[in-house]
C-alpha cells in the first residue's frame, strides 16, 4: 500500500505464508478433493500431494515475485508517478513504423509460408477478427457504446450470403453491399430502442439482441436451416475463375496455367480478407477524422454536453451502430464464403466477447492495437491446441494477465484527430 521499500525477510515470509494459506484454501476443494463416479454414485477422492505441490509453488512463487518486485521498485520509487487521467500523445513515429512493418509482413506472409495451409488459414482468421475488431471499435472504442451482441451483425452478413448464394445463386461480390446494408439496417434496429440506455443496461440489451438473432436462426428451420445451418456455400471466385480441379468451368489454375492446388484458394482468400480489412481500416481512420468521427467520441465523453452544442445524439449513435454493423456484416459475408458452411454455433455470445476483448485489449480506439490483440487472441489458443485440456485454461489466464499487465490496452494512447502548432513547446505549467 505505502511506498514499500524493500521489505525485511521476515515480512516477506509472512506475506508469502499468507498467500500460501489462501492458496491452500483455494486448493482444498478443487485440487485436494475431487469427486468421481465409481459406479452407482459419487465418491470423494483425495489428492493431497497435488495440493501440497500447488501450495508450494504458490508460496515460493510469491517469495520470488516479492523479491523481484521490491528489487525493481527501488528504482521505480524515485519516479513514482500517477498516470495522467487521459493520455493524448502527439507523435509516436515508432507506432507508424510498426504499423508499416505489420502491413509488409501481412503482404509477404503467403509467400513466406507458401504451402503451409495452417499458417495462412490462421492468418486469415486473424484478419477476420481484425476486421471485426475495427468494426466494433467504431461502436465501443469511438462511440463508447458497450455492445455485447456484435456477433449478430456478423451473423446477418454470413446468413445473407449463405442464403442469397444457395437460393438465388448470387455471387460474393454482388452480395457484399447488400449484406452490408442488411447488417446496417439491423444495427439501426438494435440502436433505436437502446438510445437512452447506458452502461450495463446497454450491455445486456445488446447481448439479448445477439441471442435473439441466434435463437431465431436456430429455430426458424425453414428460413435458416435451423441447427443444421447452411451447407455448400459457394466460394468466391477470382473474377469469375473458380478454384477447382480442372473441369468444364474456367478455373483459376487452368487460366494461369498452374497445376491445381488447394492452396490457391487459401491464398486467394487470405488476400481477399487482407484487402477487405485494409479498406476497413482506411474507411474507419478517415471517418474518425471527419465530423461524425469526432462526434462519436464526443458522445462517448459527454452526451449532455453534445446536446448543448446542438449535436443530434440520436443520429450520431445510430450512425455508429449502422457503420459498425455494416463492417461486421462484410466480415460475415467473407466468413461464410470461406467456411462454406455456417450454423448458429458460430454466432454465440463467446464470439462477441472475443471481439470485444480484442477491442479492449488492443486499446480502445487504437487501430493498430486491435491488430495485435487479434493476433494474440487467435494465435494463443491455436498454440495451445497442443495442451489440449489446458488450452482454454491458459487462454483465460492469459486474458486476465494481459489486461492486468496493460490496463489501458496494448496500444493505450489516443491520437488526436487534429492538431495545430502551438506556440512554444509546453512544460508542465501554463
Amino acid at each position, binding site marked *: 500500500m505505502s511506498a514499500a521499500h524493500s521489505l525485511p525477510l521476515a515480512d516477506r515470509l509472512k506475506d508469502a505464508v499468507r498467500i500460501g494459506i489462501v492458496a491452500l484454501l483455494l486448493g482444498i476443494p478443487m*485440487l485436494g478433493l*475431487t469427486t468421481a463416479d465409481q459406479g452407482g454414485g459419487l465418491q470423494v477422492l483425495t489428492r493431497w500431494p497435488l495440493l501440497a505441490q500447488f501450495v508450494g509453488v504458490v508460496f515460493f512463487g510469491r517469495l520470488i515475485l516479492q523479491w523481484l518486485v521490491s528489487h525493481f521498485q527501488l528504482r521505480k520509487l524515485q519516479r513514482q508517478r500517477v498516470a495522467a487521467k487521459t493520455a493524448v500523445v502527439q507523435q509516436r513515429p515508432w507506432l507508424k513504423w510498426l504499423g508499416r512493418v505489420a502491413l509488409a509482413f501481412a503482404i509477404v506472409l503467403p509467400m513466406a509460408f507458401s504451402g503451409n495451409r495452417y499458417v495462412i488459414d490462421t492468418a486469415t482468421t486473424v484478419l477476420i477478427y481484425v476486421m471485426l475488431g475495427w468494426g466494433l471499435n467504431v461502436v465501443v472504442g469511438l462511440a463508447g457504446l458497450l455492445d455485447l451482441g456484435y456477433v449478430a451483425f456478423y451473423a446477418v452478413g454470413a446468413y445473407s450470403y449463405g442464403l442469397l448464394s444457395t437460393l438465388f445463386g448470387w455471387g460474393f461480390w454482388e452480395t457484399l453491399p447488400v449484406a452490408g446494408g442488411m447488417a446496417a439496417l439491423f444495427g439501426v434496429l438494435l440502436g433505436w*430502442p437502446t438510445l437512452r440506455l447506458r452502461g450495463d443496461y446497454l450491455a445486456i440489451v445488446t447481448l439479448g439482441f445477439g441471442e435473439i438473432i441466434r435463437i431465431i436462426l436456430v429455430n426458424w428451420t425453414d428460413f435458416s436451416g435451423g441447427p443444421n445451418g447452411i451447407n455448400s456455400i459457394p466460394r468466391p471466385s477470382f473474377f469469375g475463375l473458380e478454384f477447382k480441379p480442372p473441369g468444364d468451368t474456367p478455373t483459376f489454375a487452368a487460366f494461369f496455367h498452374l497445376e491445381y492446388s488447394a492452396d490457391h484458394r487459401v491464398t486467394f482468400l487470405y488476400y481477399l480478407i487482407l484487402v477487405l480489412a485494409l479498406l476497413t481500416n482506411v474507411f474507419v481512420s478517415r471517418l474518425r477524422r471527419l465530423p461524425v468521427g469526432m462526434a462519436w467520441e464526443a458522445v462517448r465523453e459527454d452526451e449532455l454536453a453534445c446536446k448543448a452544442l446542438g449535436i443530434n445524439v440520436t443520429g450520431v449513435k445510430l450512425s455508429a451502430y449502422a457503420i459498425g454493423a455494416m463492417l461486421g456484416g462484410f466480415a460475415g459475408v467473407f466468413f461464410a464464403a470461406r467456411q462454406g458452411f455456417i450454423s448458429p454455433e458460430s454466432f454465440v455470445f463467446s464470439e462477441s466477447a472475443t471481439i*470485444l476483448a480484442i477491442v479492449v485489449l488492443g486499446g480502445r480506439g487504437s487501430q493498430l492495437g486491435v491488430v495485435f490483440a487479434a493476433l494474440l487472441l487467435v494465435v494463443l489458443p491455436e498454440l495451445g491446441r497442443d495442451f489440449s485440456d489446458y488450452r482454454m485454461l491458459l487462454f483465460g489466464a492469459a486474458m486476465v494477465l494481459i489486461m492486468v499487465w496493460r*490496463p489501458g490496452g496494448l496500444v493505450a494512447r489516443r491520437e488526436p484527430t487534429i492538431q495545430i502548432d502551438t506556440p512554444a513547446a509546453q512544460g508542465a505549467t501554463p
Partner: protein
Amino acid sequence: MGQFIQQLINGLTLGAVYGLIALGYTMVYGIIGMINFAHGDIYMVSAIISVTALTLMSAFGISSVPLVLALVLIIAIGFTSVYGWAVERTAYRPLRNASRLAPLISAIGMSIFLQNMVQVSQGARVKPVPTLIPGGLELFTHNGFSVHLAYTQIMICVVTVVLMVAFTGLITRTSFGRQQRACEQDRTMASLLGIDVDKTISYTFMLGAALAAVAGVMVTVYYGVVDFSIGFVAGIKAFTAAVLGGVGSLPGAMLGGVLIGLIESYWSAYLSPEYKDVATFAILILVLMFRPSGLLGRPEVEKV
C-alpha cells in the same frame, strides 16, 4: 387451472434461483460499478464445492438433513468467499484505475479460467447427488392434474426472501453499506474520507460470493446435478434479472429474477419453449425502453 398454478410454483422457484444469483451480482455491481462476468462461475464453483461436501457428509455417515444442509452451507460459503476474494484480488484490483471496460474483459478471462480450471481439476462429467430432501406437498388435483409443491421449492423461496431482506438492510441502513456505495460513486473521495477502498471492495466480493455460494448449494440440492458449465447460463440470466429490476437494487434483482422465472415458465407452458429466451429479452428491451433504469432502479436524473 392446475397447470397454471403448477407453473406459478415452478416459475417462482426458478425465479428465486435467478434472483439469488442476481443478488450477489447486483451487490458486486453496486461497488465496482460494472458487470462481474465471473459471478456465474463463482456460483458454479460453489455448486461443485457443495457436491464434494455433500458426498463427504454421506461418506462420514451424517444423515440428519438439517445438519447436512447447515454444514454444506458453511463449507460452501467459506470456500467460495475465498474464491470471491481471490478473483477480486487478481482480476479487478490491479485494474482499479483503468477504463471501465478493462475489468469487464479480465472478468471474461477469469470466467473462462474458472470454468476450465474446474473442468480440468474436477472432470468434465456431470456430478449428481442423491436427492437430499425428497417429496413435497400435493396441493390439489384438478381435472386429473395434480399440483405439486416440493419441499425444496419452499426452502429456496424462503431462503431467497430472507437473504434479500437481510442484505437490503445491510446496504441501505448500515455504515458498511454506505461505504460500499461511496466506493462505487467516487473511490478517490471515499478514500479521502478514510475509507479503505480495497478492503471494502474485497469484503463486498466475499459477500457476493457468499450469496452465490448459497445459490450454488440450493441449486445442487434442488436439481441434483451440476457440472462445470452451469455458470454461464445462470450468469446471463442473473445479469438479465439484475438489469430488469434495476442494477444496484436488491429488491429489484429479486423482482427481476422472479419475473424472468415466470415469463420462462409460462411461455414454455403455453407458447413455444424455443422462443422463451427471445420473449425474456424482448420484454427486457420493452421495459428498458420505458424505464431505462429498470423496474426498481432509481432513474438517473442527471442535474446539469
